């Protein structure tokens, strides 16, 4: 997943009405109607944690820059999140296993070299090759030939020299011509065309392979903007690239991604008119919707692909094979009140495990169990084996995590008359270390930010048996089969199967949905036509500045 650093740290996001309140009416001052095509726009950003290489960028600081300068096979519509062809002419398959990708002709990188089939094949092979230690390596796990490039740790306990991989290339990638290649997957994936819009699937020019280190500081890409100067500490200056052939041409000349170490500094800069766009206001500005007062007519409150959940580890004796305990806990959490009091009316109570913004979302998968009902909660607790005491582990380095954890525990305590304590972990890394090594014996906080806007991304990576992010180690063969079936099906039929699989999670409630998130962005008087993309960034193509 692409971790928004703030989410990893569990920052306080609010999700309010999912309605948008984007208006670009100008309140006096310079009128945005006089759009200036030579304008420079400054954008809030955090320091990229990794070199600016698509296969190695899994957090927003770097992702924001890459998404502005690269174009993948598909791009997502800023309004509907639906995938649209970008570098690709078409992506087609008869069986959802073998995909034929045809590229648009005459596309080039910013150094003049062509964007052809090799640009994608080489880039994907580099990321999929284990010894390159690319952070987005697992995105290629579904490709044929991945296992030969990533031998499993022989003794399975910590780092020992693994075997040398048998292959350096994915056997599933075959070049047909300069503008066509085929992808063979290990199993069917009907969402493949949506998936390849993710950062990990961008193409790379030859210059990358000559000197990856230099490339990571100043990448050469193929999108509407190019990096002209900058570094991670102060930020990067991106200028509109005149050679870009796509239809999504920007209306501004320059985008400056300024690095901030604190969000309140960024927010004050927006208020003072020194910063044009901030994608998420700090928690303090959410109280009483202060940000809407501060930046009237220059804010948006838009749902994003993020959900927070509570996980019951199935490997712990407390919760093993007990379908009732999760239901009791879920019924005991008063989501309406907590989202109002702790999150200032920001987040939205979850009714299932999938974010409302993605293709295939259906409300209410959680059914009655996500409605606060202390009486029914007590009934389920009476049927369950484990009666507490409960504890809820969270990472204390995230704003609002403590308050949320305590509110959840209080709600459980009051509804069930059991003990429940919020248990703080000093930071995200410490909590994740225990989670990843199956050391949890009580409730803990989990969350997911989608990689690409598709219902599958909220289900398979999180709840399929043995999936990398299945933190509770929940396993249900019926669920796995339904996901497999959905992955092989098309359109509405696939969605129906995904939704049926999602509804199955409610049979055990091993993961309790809590709330959906939204982002609250603000911008300066200079900007008009502001849109926020499904990747939570400013849409640099439609924005105009005066």
């Amino acid at each position: 997943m692409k971790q928004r650093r703030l989410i990893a740290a569990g920052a306080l996001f609010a999700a309010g009405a999912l309605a948008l309140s984007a208006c670009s009416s100008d309140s006096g001052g310079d009128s945005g109607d006089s759009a200036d095509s030579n304008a420079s726009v400054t954008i809030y950003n955090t320091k990229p944690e990794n070199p600016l290489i698509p296969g190695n960028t899994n957090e927003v600081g770097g992702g924001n820059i890459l998404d502005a300068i690269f174009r993948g096979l598909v791009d997502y519509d800023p309004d509907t999140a639906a995938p649209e062809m970008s570098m690709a002419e078409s992506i087609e398959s008869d069986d959802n296993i073998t995909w034929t990708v045809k590229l648009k002709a005459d596309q080039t990188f910013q150094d003049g070299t062509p964007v052809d089939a090799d640009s994608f094949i080489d880039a994907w092979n580099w990321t999929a090759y284990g010894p390159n230690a690319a952070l987005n390596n697992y995105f290629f796990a579904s490709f044929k030939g991945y296992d030969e490039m990533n031998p499993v740790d022989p003794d399975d306990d910590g780092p020992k020299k693994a075997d040398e991989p048998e292959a350096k290339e994915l056997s599933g990638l075959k070049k047909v011509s300069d503008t066509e290649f085929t992808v063979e997957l290990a199993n069917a994936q009907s969402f493949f065309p949506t998936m390849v819009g993710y950062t990990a699937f961008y193409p790379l020019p030859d210059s990358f392979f000559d000197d990856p280190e230099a490339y990571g500081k100043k990448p050469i890409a193929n999108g509407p903007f190019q990096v002209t100067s900058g570094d991670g500490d102060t930020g990067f200056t991106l200028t509109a690239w005149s050679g870009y052939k796509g239809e999504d041409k920007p209306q501004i000349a320059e985008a400056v991604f300024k690095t901030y170490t604190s969000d309140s500094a960024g927010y004050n800069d927006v208020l003072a008119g020194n910063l044009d766009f901030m994608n998420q206001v700090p928690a303090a500005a959410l109280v009483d919707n202060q940000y809407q007062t501060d930046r009237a007519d220059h804010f948006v409150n838009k749902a994003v692909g993020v959900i927070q959940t509570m996980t019951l580890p199935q490997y712990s004796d407390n919760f093993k094979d007990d379908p009732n305990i999760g239901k009791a806990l879920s019924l005991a959490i008063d989501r309406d009140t907590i989202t109002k009091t702790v999150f200032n009316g920001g987040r939205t109570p979850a009714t299932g495990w999938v974010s409302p913004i993605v293709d295939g979302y259906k409300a209410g998968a959680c059914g009655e169990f996500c409605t606060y009902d202390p009486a029914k909660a007590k009934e389920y607790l009476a049927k369950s084996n484990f009666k507490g005491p409960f504890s809820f582990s969270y990472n204390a380095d995230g704003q609002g995590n403590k308050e949320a954890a305590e509110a959840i525990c209080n709600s459980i305590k009051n509804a069930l008359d059991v003990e429940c304590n919020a248990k703080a972990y000093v930071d995200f890394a410490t909590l994740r270390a225990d989670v990843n090594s199956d050391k949890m014996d009580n409730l803990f906080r989990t969350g997911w930010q989608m990689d690409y806007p598709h219902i599958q991304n909220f289900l398979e990576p999180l709840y399929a048996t043995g999936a990398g992010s299945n933190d509770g180690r929940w396993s249900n063969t019926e669920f796995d089969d339904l996901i497999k079936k959905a992955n092989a099906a098309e359109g509405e039929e696939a969605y129906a199967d995904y939704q049926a699989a999602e509804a199955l999670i409610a049979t055990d409630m091993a993961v309790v949905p809590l709330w959906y998130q939204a982002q609250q962005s603000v911008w300066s008087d200079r900007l008009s036509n502001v849109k926020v993309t499904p990747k939570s960034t400013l849409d640099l193509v439609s924005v105009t500045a005066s």
Partner: protein
Amino acid sequence: MGRYILRRLLLMIPVLVGTTFFIYAMAWAIPGDPFASRCGQRPCTDSFIQAETARLHLDQPLPVQYGYFVWNMLHGDFGTTSSGETVLEAASRAFPITVKLTVVAILFELVLGIGLGIVAALRRGGYLDGFFLFTSLVAISFPAFVIGYVLQYVLGVKAGLFAVTVGSGAPWKDLILPGFVLAALSLAYVLRLTRASLLETLKADHVRTAIAKGLPRGMVLRKHVVRNSLIPVLTYIGADVGILLGGAIVTEGVFNIQGIGGLLYHAMRIRENATVVSVSTLVVLVILTVNLLVDLMYARLDPRIRYE
């Protein structure tokens, strides 16, 4: 004098070894997997963990790891950050900014702290004295980030008098407000120290004699009072220079200054222990050097101090 300096330089070696080993051990002793947060909700791939382990020699015992670290440092290799830069590159970009900020803050301490301290001492018990004592107490009792945020909002956002955050390259005019915030605490101490020290000296016999001789008041103050009173104050300010050069995490955060403090903060947050240790080592080096310079300065101020 030369022998003294040499002795001090040789003494730096055990101090450096001790502090860096201590920092190194502490950084890696923090519980939790240093890689766990690098990969979000997924465990990192085996190959990533292997690569990082090999790079940092994490499979070796701690003293061996530390040996590698020192050995690399002696070759001028301070390691690389996760974003692919060498630590030296990042630090050499950040350090001048921290130096600039320190200069501004020290100027505030020297001019305002000593100046107002003298005024307060001369107007002892008056309105001004009371006002200065009260405001300095406020400065001491409020945490830096509160003072920082309040001044940033009131003087920067609302009044528009100062830059809200510091632009790239940290131009001097942007550093006035953060420099003041950074200096606020020390400024208050310097003011009170100057005042107390001056009052002490004003009571001294030699001052009474000088006034009785009929020397003009201004000359007495300049020659006999202020100069003698400044030694403890300068000691304090000298120590402060070292501390400020170590980076001001809070102030740099509030005003978005990309100095050593910001660098350390970011590295700590994403568990980049190697970077934390390298940068801290550089900071320790700077502090030791500044302390040596301050000690040498005493000899210039006070002829009674001789280094043999």
